[in-house]
C-alpha cells in the first residue's frame, strides 16, 4: 500500500472548506464534452484508466485521522465509466447538459471514500456526450484541461492501434517538494506582507449587491456571448489601446461596477491559475487561487488608461498568487480587520479546446467552475468565436432581475467603450445610467 502524503496548501484549503461547510456539493465542478458523432465507450474507459493512474493526484482518496489532519492516500482502483442510452437526440445540447448534470451536482462526494471524479457517457442516437463531474479538491479549470487533453491523446493512440503514451504528469510529492522549498516559502512571505499592505490601503470592496447571504442553493447562471460585430469591435479597441481583449473585458466589468457603486476605487476578485513551475503546469490537481485586484480608477480615464491600470495590477499580482486567499482572510481576521477582501469574482477561462477523438470533433461545455456566495463573472475566451460571459449568482443575494441588470451593464459598457475608446470612464458610467433601474 502506498504511503499517505500531506496535502498542498490549495488541496488543504478545499478540503477544509468542504469539511466545515457541511455542504460538500457546493464544491462540485462539471464539464460536458460534446462529441459531434459516436465514440467508442471501450476505448474511452481504457483511456480514462490510463490517465487516472498516471498521477497519484488523481488516483487517490482524501482521508483524515482522528485529529482531522487530511492526507492524500494513493488508491489505484479506476472508477467505472457509467453509460446511459438515450432514445432521442437532445435538441438543445447546452440546456440538456445543464439539466442532466443537476442531480449529480447536488450530490456531495465523500472525500475519504469516493474517487473525486465521475465520468458518464450519455449515448444519444447521433452523438455521444461525456459528463465529467468532479470535486474542486481534485481539479481546477486548468486541471480539467490537462486531464481532458491527456484523455484525448490516449483515446487517439488506442484508436490508431498505438501503445498508450507515457503521460508527463507531475505527482503529489513533486508539488510538496516544490511548495516546501525555501524559495517558494520566501516568496509566500513576501506575498503575505504585500497583499496585507495593499488591502490596508483600499476602501471596503463593494459588489453588485450589498446584501450578505450564505449560499442556500446552487448558483443561478445567466449566459450571453458577444455578437460577432461587437466582438470584433472589442478586439479592435484592444489593439488600439495596445491591450489584450481580456483587459477590455475587465475594464467593462469595472465600469459596470463603478456605475453600480459610485466607487472608483474598486477591488475585483481575480481567479488566477497560480501555476508557474513546470511541476505545477504538468500536474492535474487543484492549484488556482482568488486574488484581490485593487484598481484605482478615475472618472477621466480613457479605455486605454483603464486597461493599463488593470494590466499593471495583474502583473503585480502574478508574483503574489502563491499566497492563498484563505490564509489572507485568516491573517486579516487575526489582525481584527475585515475579511471581505474583494467584490465580484472574475474568472478568465482560456482552457477550452476542440480536439478530435478518432476523427470525431468535440466541443467542451464548462457547466460549473465552482460556487460563489456573491457573483462570479466567467469569461470564456474561445479561440475562434466571440467571448461568452457566464454570470453565476448566489440566488439569496441576487434576484433574477438584478442578475440580468449586471449582465446588461457589462455588455453595454463593453459595447460603448469599445466603440468609443477615447471616451472616459465617467462617460461610460453616464451611458449606463438607468441600467440598474430598468426592469429588463
Amino acid at each position, binding site marked *: 500500500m502506498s504511503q499517505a502524503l500531506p496535502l498542498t496548501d490549495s488541496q488543504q484549503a478545499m478540503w477544509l472548506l468542504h469539511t466545515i461547510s457541511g455542504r460538500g456539493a457546493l464544491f462540485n465542478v462539471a464539464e460536458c464534452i460534446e462529441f459531434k458523432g459516436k465514440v467508442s465507450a471501450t476505448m474511452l474507459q481504457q483511456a480514462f484508466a490510463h490517465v487516472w493512474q498516471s498521477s497519484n493526484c488523481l488516483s487517490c482518496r482524501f482521508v483524515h485521522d482522528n485529529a482531522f489532519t487530511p492526507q492524500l492516500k494513493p488508491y489505484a482502483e479506476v472508477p467505472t465509466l457509467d453509460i446511459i442510452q438515450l432514445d432521442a437526440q437532445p435538441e438543445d445540447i447546452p440546456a440538456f447538459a445543464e439539466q442532466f448534470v443537476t442531480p449529480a451536482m447536488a450530490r456531495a462526494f465523500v472525500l475519504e471514500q469516493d474517487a473525486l471524479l465521475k465520468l458518464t457517457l450519455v449515448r444519444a442516437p447521433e452523438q455521444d456526450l461525456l459528463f465529467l463531474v468532479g470535486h474542486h479538491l481534485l481539479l481546477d479549470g*486548468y486541471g480539467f*484541461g*490537462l486531464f481532458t*487533453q491527456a484523455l484525448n491523446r490516449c483515446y487517439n493512440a488506442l484508436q490508431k492501434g498505438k501503445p498508450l503514451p507515457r503521460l*508527463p504528469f507531475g505527482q503529489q510529492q513533486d508539488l510538496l517538494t516544490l511548495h516546501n522549498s525555501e524559495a517558494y516559502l520566501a516568496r509566500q512571505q513576501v506575498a503575505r506582507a504585500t497583499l496585507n499592505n495593499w488591502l490596508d490601503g483600499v476602501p471596503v470592496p463593494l459588489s453588485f449587491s450589498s446584501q450578505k447571504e450564505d449560499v442556500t442553493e446552487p448558483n443561478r447562471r445567466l449566459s450571453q456571448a458577444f455578437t*460577432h*460585430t*461587437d466582438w*470584433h*469591435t472589442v*478586439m*479592435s*479597441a484592444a*489593439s*488600439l489601446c495596445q491591450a*489584450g*481583449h*481580456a*483587459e477590455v473585458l475587465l475594464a467593462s466589468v469595472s465600469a459596470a461596477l463603478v456605475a453600480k457603486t459610485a466607487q472608483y476605487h474598486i477591488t475585483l476578485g481575480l481567479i488566477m*491559475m497560480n*501555476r*508557474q513551475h*513546470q511541476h505545477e*503546469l*504538468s500536474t492535474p490537481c487543484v492549484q488556482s487561487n482568488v486574488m484581490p485586484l485593487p484598481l484605482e480608477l478615475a472618472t477621466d480615464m480613457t479605455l486605454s488608461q483603464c486597461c493599463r491600470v488593470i494590466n499593471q495590477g*495583474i*502583473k503585480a499580482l*502574478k508574483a503574489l498568487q502563491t499566497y492563498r486567499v484563505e490564509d489572507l482572510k485568516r491573517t486579516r481576521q487575526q489582525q481584527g480587520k475585515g475579511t471581505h477582501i474583494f467584490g465580484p469574482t472574475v474568472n*478568465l477561462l*482560456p*482552457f477550452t*479546446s476542440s*480536439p478530435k477523438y478518432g476523427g470525431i470533433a468535440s466541443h467542451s461545455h464548462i457547466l460549473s467552475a465552482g460556487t460563489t456566495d456573491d457573483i462570479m463573472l466567467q469569461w470564456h*475566451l474561445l*479561440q*475562434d468565436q466571440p467571448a461568452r460571459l457566464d454570470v453565476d449568482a448566489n440566488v439569496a443575494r441576487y434576484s433574477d432581475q438584478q442578475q440580468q441588470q449586471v449582465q446588461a451593464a457589462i455588455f453595454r459598457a463593453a459595447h460603448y467603450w*469599445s*466603440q*468609443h*475608446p*477615447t471616451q472616459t470612464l465617467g462617460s461610460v458610467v453616464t451611458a449606463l445610467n438607468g441600467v440598474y433601474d430598468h426592469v429588463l
Partner: protein
Amino acid sequence: MSIPKLSHYPLPRAAELPENRVDWQLDASRAALLIHDVQHYFVGYYGDNNPLIETMINHIQRLKQFCYEQGIPVFYTAQPIKQGQHERGLLSDMWGPGLQDPAQQPIVDALAPGEQDVVLTKWRYSAFQKCDFEAQLQERGRDQLMIVGIYGHIGVMTTAVDAFMRDIQPFVIADAIADFSRDEHLMALNFVAGRCGKVATVADILGEETQDITTLEGLKAHILPLIDCEADEFDEHESLIDYGLDSVQVMNLIALWQQQGIETNFIELAQIPTLAAWIDLLEERKED
C-alpha cells in the same frame, strides 16, 4: 432604409486572407488605382475618430504615394448629391434618397484628389456603370485595377466583378478597404479571391516583408514587447511564464497561429512554456 451606424473592427492580417485562385503580378505599367467612395457622407457612418477608418486612410495614403512614384494613374469615385429618382434607380428602394448635403459630397480631406487624379461620378455599385471608366483605363493602357475604399462587400466587390468581366484584372487591397462589419469584409475578400480577382495587402503591393510568427525570429519579435524584455537578455530555452507571459497573451498567439491553419491549445503550450519548444511544436504541426 439608410446605411446603418458602423463600428470598427480589426483589419484582416495577411495570414487570414483567402487563397487566391490566380497568380497575377501587379505591373506598374499596366496598373491603375481606384479610391472608391471615400466621401464624407459614407465615412460619416463610422463616426468621428474611428480607428478602422483612420487605418484605412493611412494605408490608402501610402498606396497613393506609391502610385505617384511609380507613375500609376489614380482614379476616385464620388457619388453626386440629390440624384433624381430616374438617376438613382433601384438604389432608392434599397438605401433611400442617398447623399443630399453638398458638404458631405467631397472626398475626405486626408485623401483629397491631386491635380493629376481623375474623379469619376459614381451612379451604381460598380464604378464602371453609366460611366466611361473602362475607356479611360484603355486610353492609358491599363488593364489592372487596384481597388481600395468603402464599402468592401458593396461597391468594391461589385467593381471588382465588373472589372473581371471586362478583362481587367482587379486587385482588392484587403487592408485598405472598410466594410459594414468584419464578417462582410471577409466575405467580400473570399468572393474576390475565389471568383474574380486577386486579394493582396498594402505590404504585398509595396514589397514589404511581414512578420512570420511561426518562425523563431518572427515569434521572438512578437513576444519580446509583450514581456518587456530586450533581445540580448532573452533565452528561448527559459520558461516564458517566468518572463511574465500570461494565459491571455498565449490565447492571442493561439488565435494567430490558427489563422495560419496551425492548431494548438493553451494546455499543451503551457506544459512546454519555452519559445524553442513552441517552435518545435509549430514545425511538427506544419508537417501534419
